[in-house]
């Protein structure tokens, strides 16, 4: 995200808004006809890989996949450098996920085509951030001056790290609600404060949601705790039930990068606040806009008149 200015981010989000009917399949707009996306997922991923693929195909483009790493040249010991050189020749743009942090930057240094980072180790996950920003802006009409509560595993969750940085750039007020063990890393908090962020750290999630505009939940993994009891004691306070929402702002949205386990009770799904499935869908439209931007393809101002019906 550091590669983009705030203005560029807003432009991409505007493009994404116009592309919504195309993402939903209501319009056919083959802006990327003849272009090929290379999906290089060195780690398993369902949502991210599929949404890149859907984004490309909705715009008339094609996709080639690395496939299962176990059956690829990676197993034979091919370096990432060599894999990138090869796929760089086959495709117009690459989406990748890699277990090692910094892999996307390394790939970009040696590639001719744009690289989209779909997650590298505990590092960045900028396309997730883009779709999160899109979802927040869609609900509130702005990214500025919102109060955003990020809850759950803030220590290991890469989505919350990238998102906090991005929201800070747009002047949001941040509340980090987590068990002590899973607090936002100190260096990130101090980094955010240096960039002028207003950050409150708390262990009290339910006490923080009533004046929030966004509540961003994440999954707390059992493996992070010493034993089952410790997990139950800590994680219990980071679960949302519809009963907790009686006093919240009416336009407040609840987000989650998914998959969820039990941090958001099914009773929340039918409330007006539940936004996580829409958020997952937005992964497609945000990636459509990002691919167009990176390939220098202009999204028409009037998508409706340019697009054809099926």
């Amino acid at each position, binding site marked *: 995200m550091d590669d983009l200015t705030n203005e560029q981010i807003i432009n991409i989000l505007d493009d994404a808004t116009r592309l919504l009917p195309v993402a939903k399949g209501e319009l056919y707009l083959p802006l990327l006809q003849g272009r090929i996306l290379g999906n290089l997922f060195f780690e398993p991923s369902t949502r991210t890989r599929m949404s890149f693929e859907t984004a490309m195909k909705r715009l008339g483009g094609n996709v080639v996949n690395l496939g299962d790493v176990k059956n690829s040249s990676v197993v034979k010991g091919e*370096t*990432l450098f060599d894999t990138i050189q090869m796929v760089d020749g086959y495709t117009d743009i690459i989406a990748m996920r*890699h277990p090692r*942090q*910094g*892999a996307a*930057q390394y790939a970009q240094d040696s590639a001719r085509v744009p690289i989209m980072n779909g997650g590298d180790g505990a590092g960045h996950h900028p396309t997730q951030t883009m779709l999160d920003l899109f979802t927040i802006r869609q609900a509130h009409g702005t990214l500025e001056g919102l109060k955003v509560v990020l809850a759950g595993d803030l220590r290991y969750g890469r989505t919350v790290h990238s998102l906090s940085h991005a929201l800070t750039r747009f002047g949001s007020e941040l509340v980090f609600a987590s068990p002590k063990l899973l607090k936002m890393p100190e260096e990130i908090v101090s980094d955010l404060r240096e960039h002028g962020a207003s950050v409150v750290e708390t262990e009290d999630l339910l006490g923080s949601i009533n004046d929030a505009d966004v509540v961003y939940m994440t999954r707390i993994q059992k493996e992070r705790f010493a034993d089952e009891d410790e997990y139950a004691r800590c994680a219990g306070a980071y679960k949302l039930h519809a009963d907790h929402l009686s006093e919240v702002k009416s336009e407040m949205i609840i987000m989650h990068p998914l998959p969820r386990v039990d941090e958001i009770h099914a009773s929340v799904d039918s409330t007006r606040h539940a936004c996580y499935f829409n958020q997952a869908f937005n992964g497609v439209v945000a990636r459509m806009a990002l691919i167009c931007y990176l390939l220098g393809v202009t999204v028409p101002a009037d998508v409706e008149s340019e697009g054809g019906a099926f």
Partner: protein
Amino acid sequence: MSNEHSMRRVTAIRNGTVIDHIPSGQALRVLEMLGIGGKSSVPVSLVMNVPSKKMGAKDIIKVEDRELTQTELDRLALVAPDAHVAIIRAYSVAEKLTINLGSEVSNVVRCTFSNCITTNHREPLPHRLKVISRAPLHIRCHYCGRPQDLDELIKNVL
């Protein structure tokens, strides 16, 4: 003067390079980074932990019959950023050099983060670290973006 006194611990050299004001205890690492060890045939004198007005204590290295280049010296920026370097010809100082820390430190040390892409030795990549700020010295890996602990970092000399 303590400085003059410490300089007299080893004899003056006729030709070569004197590196002064090395932080106390770092002289061996400096030699390692310059690739000057037991196998090189030039005479090397080094004093460690001598009193210094400026630094409290410091190390000094004298390398005979070899003039270090600016590029070689810049490799020392992380270990001995304030070292003073003198090129000696016929017993007198012919040139004075300082060590420059650029905006990037390339192929000198390896990122300290265990899951960084740079830990895969088979990848043909340059080891690049970005200098974010000079005082205090703040360095991040070009690839993984992790801030680097300087004490750990200088153990990772390539």
